[in-house]
């Protein structure tokens, strides 16, 4: 593509999906990603990616048609194939990949299965009081950060959504809001919080339950001065006094955290909607992860860990990619998206089976591949749609051209598999 500036580009460096980036290119490289935070600048990088097609062990590149044919043959001959959706795929690519999994009667899983499943499973049991980020920006007068400071992993959350910007109903912006940080061990809330509450990691679930109990009028009578009870009931009083409370938490699992935390946060947000209004905002990492959840849900009814082995989608949140790979059940894998985003725990077992990789830098995959087709990064080289962490869909405006287009490669793969199936 020609040198120039693409305005209103959406960054997928994290789930914030800021759509105000101006990407400047010169000589086929990105030289500036204006408005992006350091994490975003890093994610855009120069935009230079390999453009190779590898099939088998030969030193030379294969042509696309024969690589696709080889991939189709591998996948068709599998007895227990896995289709794994990694990061940096547009919704359109994700939809095309799900179609391939459906045809192959494969196990289909995504990054969500290993990183953010606890919150999804809890919300499926209990529901979820939530809001789009703009509602929080315009309305939330209390913003509670539960054991998270977005500064490192979601850098522009605070400046674009809350608490900093002025909102339609909060003309004074940050000054019109109360920021509460709940520090849980080393997981601390923002440094500039107006109110700080400290909770020991071992007490986290109890604390959530106590705040909820206090809101529901079930608090213990006259708690001692600095007991957990006293701190949580004071916090409950503050929250109840808010007009619109946003609770912000990180949905991507941090190790050692109690999985009951998700349920506790959902219950708390629900209980707050008795006396006042409240929305839970959960932070998701980059590369269009929420999009994968949404596309799987639309096409199969389930947001992750879908097993097509019996010819129909079955939900297997406890027997997804991580479990089946570890158990040695999978014999061939189709890895779509950035192989570099695959969680470390999956890399070992994936390395032991034939892998077809279609995605950005597939030819430089840290996981050995039988077939590798380099495509582009959604949002940098490929267009389409991505979802923000609150499920708001955004258009992608690629600044550079992809070596191969993921959607087209996946469609060709589907056609090749269908043709083989028909011939058989």
């Amino acid at each position, binding site marked *: 593509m020609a040198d120039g500036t693409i305005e209103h580009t959406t960054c997928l460096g994290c789930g914030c999906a800021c759509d105000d980036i101006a990407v400047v290119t010169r000589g086929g490289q990105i030289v500036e990603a204006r408005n992006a935070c350091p994490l975003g600048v890093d994610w855009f990088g120069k935009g230079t990616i390999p453009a190779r097609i590898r099939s088998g062990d030969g030193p030379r590149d294969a042509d696309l048609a024969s690589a696709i044919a080889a991939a189709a043959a591998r996948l068709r001959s599998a007895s227990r194939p896995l289709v794994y959706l990694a990061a940096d795929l547009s919704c359109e690519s994700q939809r095309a990949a799900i179609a391939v999994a459906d045809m192959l009667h494969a196990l289909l899983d995504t990054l969500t299965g290993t990183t953010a499943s606890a919150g999804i499973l809890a919300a499926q049991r209990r529901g979820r009081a939530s809001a789009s980020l703009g509602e929080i920006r315009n309305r939330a007068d209390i913003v509670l950060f539960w054991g998270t400071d977005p500064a490192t992993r979601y850098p522009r959350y605070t400046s674009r959504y809350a608490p900093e910007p002025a909102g339609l109903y909060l003309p004074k912006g940050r000054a019109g809001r109360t920021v509460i940080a709940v520090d849980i061990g080393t997981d601390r809330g923002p440094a500039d919080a107006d109110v700080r509450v400290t909770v020991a990691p071992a007490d986290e679930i109890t604390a959530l339950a106590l705040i909820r109990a206090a809101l529901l009028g079930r608090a213990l009578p006259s708690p001692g001065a600095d007991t957990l009870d006293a701190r949580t009931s004071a916090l409950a009083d503050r929250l109840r006094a808010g007009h619109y409370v946003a609770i912000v938490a990180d949905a991507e699992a941090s190790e050692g955290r109690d999985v009951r935390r998700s349920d506790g946060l959902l219950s708390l947000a629900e209980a707050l909607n008795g006396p006042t209004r409240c929305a839970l905002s959960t932070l998701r990492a980059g590369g269009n992860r929420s999009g994968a959840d949404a596309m799987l849900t639309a096409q199969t009814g389930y947001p992750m860990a879908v097993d097509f082995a019996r010819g129909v989608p079955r939900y297997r949140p406890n027997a997804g990619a991580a479990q089946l790979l570890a158990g040695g059940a999978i014999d061939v894998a189709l890895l779509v998206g950035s192989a570099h985003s695959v969680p470390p725990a999956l890399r070992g077992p994936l390395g032991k089976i034939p892998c077809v990789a279609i995605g950005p830098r597939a030819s430089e995959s840290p996981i050995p591949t039988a077939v590798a087709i380099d495509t582009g990064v959604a949002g940098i080289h490929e267009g389409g749609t991505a979802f923000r962490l609150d*499920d708001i869909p955004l258009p992608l405006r690629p600044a550079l051209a992809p070596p191969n287009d993921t959607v087209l490669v996946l469609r060709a793969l589907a056609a090749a598999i269908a043709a083989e199936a028909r011939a058989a």
Partner: protein
Amino acid sequence: MTTLRIAGGTVYDPANGVDGAVRDICIQDGTIVATLPKNAPKLDATGMVVMPGGIDIHAHVAASSVNTARRLVPEQHDADPARAPDLALDEDGELVIPRSGSGGTVPSVFTTGYRYAGLGYTTVFDAAVAPITARDTHAQLDDTPIVDAGCFILLGNDAYLLRQLAAGATDRIQDYVAWMLGATRGYAVKIVNPGGVELWKENVREVKTLDDPVGGEAKVTPRAILEALTTAANALKLPHPVHIHCNNLGIPGNVATTLDSMRTVAGQRAHFTHVQFHSYAGERGKSWASGAKQIAEYLAQHPETTCDVGQVMFGPACTITADGALEYLLHTSNGGKWVNVDIELETGCGIVPFNYKDKSAVNALQWVVGLELFLLSPDPWRVVLSTDHPNGATFQSYPELIHLLMDRAYRDEKLKAINQKFLVGSALADGIAREYTLGEIAIITRAGPARILGLTQKGHLGVGADADITVYTTDADRTKMFATPRYVVKGGTLVVEEGQLRRAPTGQRHGVRPGYDTLIERDVKDFFDRYLTVAFENYAV
């Protein structure tokens, strides 16, 4: 050139005054034509019933809120896995991958398209799309095969619009509506609980009258919103001017609110949706009764007013609505799981899975009110069939609903078995003899919705119409008859053959793009820059 003659069927085409006449329907390249050569391919429909394809005027199939609901009910999907259909090879070698999926009250996208077509429905409108999520709706519709589709855009609680009302800048509203419909590829304006969703966000949970101020602005009231949007939609000459979900859904005594809303826009074309949920007499906290008679009387006097019923059927449902306050009430009353999503400066979304029980006094009344609306209806062209899928029941219950309307003995048998507590004095309990004819069924499921939606190419079998046709094997068991059409033709393609889904072509999208003064864009962009989290430039689909 592809041709097909559907020969010798008994045709019900009310828009063209055909009520059970034996005749041939000729199809050429997706359109109905007057004649075909004698040797054209022929489908023998002797003894069968031929109708235009069904049109669902109000369903929830492809909104972001629908996908959120889908995610909420994995247990329903587990119980209703859907195999990929056994599709025939496409003549032009085009690859159509048959897709598996899951059902329940909120089926997956492909399964939704297949199942609608399997029921003889060929056109479906999603009734509630938050504008900021329209891109998602169109993607879901792209994956909903066979049926033609469109969507209604939620505007009754839109912050920009409410600000124009507050400022008295009503002249801007028409341009804004036109811009918005084009930007979202929408088909019509939807109003849900006007002002009430904004109030819910402000923690005001009840709309007492249509003159309650919204956001503390005396000029911004449910009535003002209804007036402004109805006037704008009619001035724009939209094919389907305005689709209204009134305030106070599901609350006893709300028939007064509904009638007040109808009177507010009297004299202008307006469609009131799922009126069953808005036709209760009685008093909050005290009593429930049917208000269907009052609605029927109003409709008899007002030919410009149309409605769909939103029938409740006993069994599982999933309530999905922009009416967040209502869903919170429902959640606190049934204790079930609850989702709420406040959508920035536009609307809201609430979801509660629900099971309607014939032993529940309120559910039994709801069932009766819906049937009364049909049976007391002064005009089948203006009181058309819906279950507000999946709110009152899923679309798969349409055949049984048709059975209830066509067969008094069947209906009275069911009526006996339900909770009678609130049925005292109800017209249905007193006995209604009316039975819908096949011609009237064709009106409330095809011709009527097409006319209300302004779809001139659909809902009839005249020359030039889209070749969307359903052929049923006649059966006295109307549930069975309407659940299993023998043939379904969509846009000239035979999609159901001998009761089996065999082809899954891509449906068309229906949208409008009314003209407007482009000056509005500057003002809207300024509002976006200040308050929205999505760039104006990234908003239009």
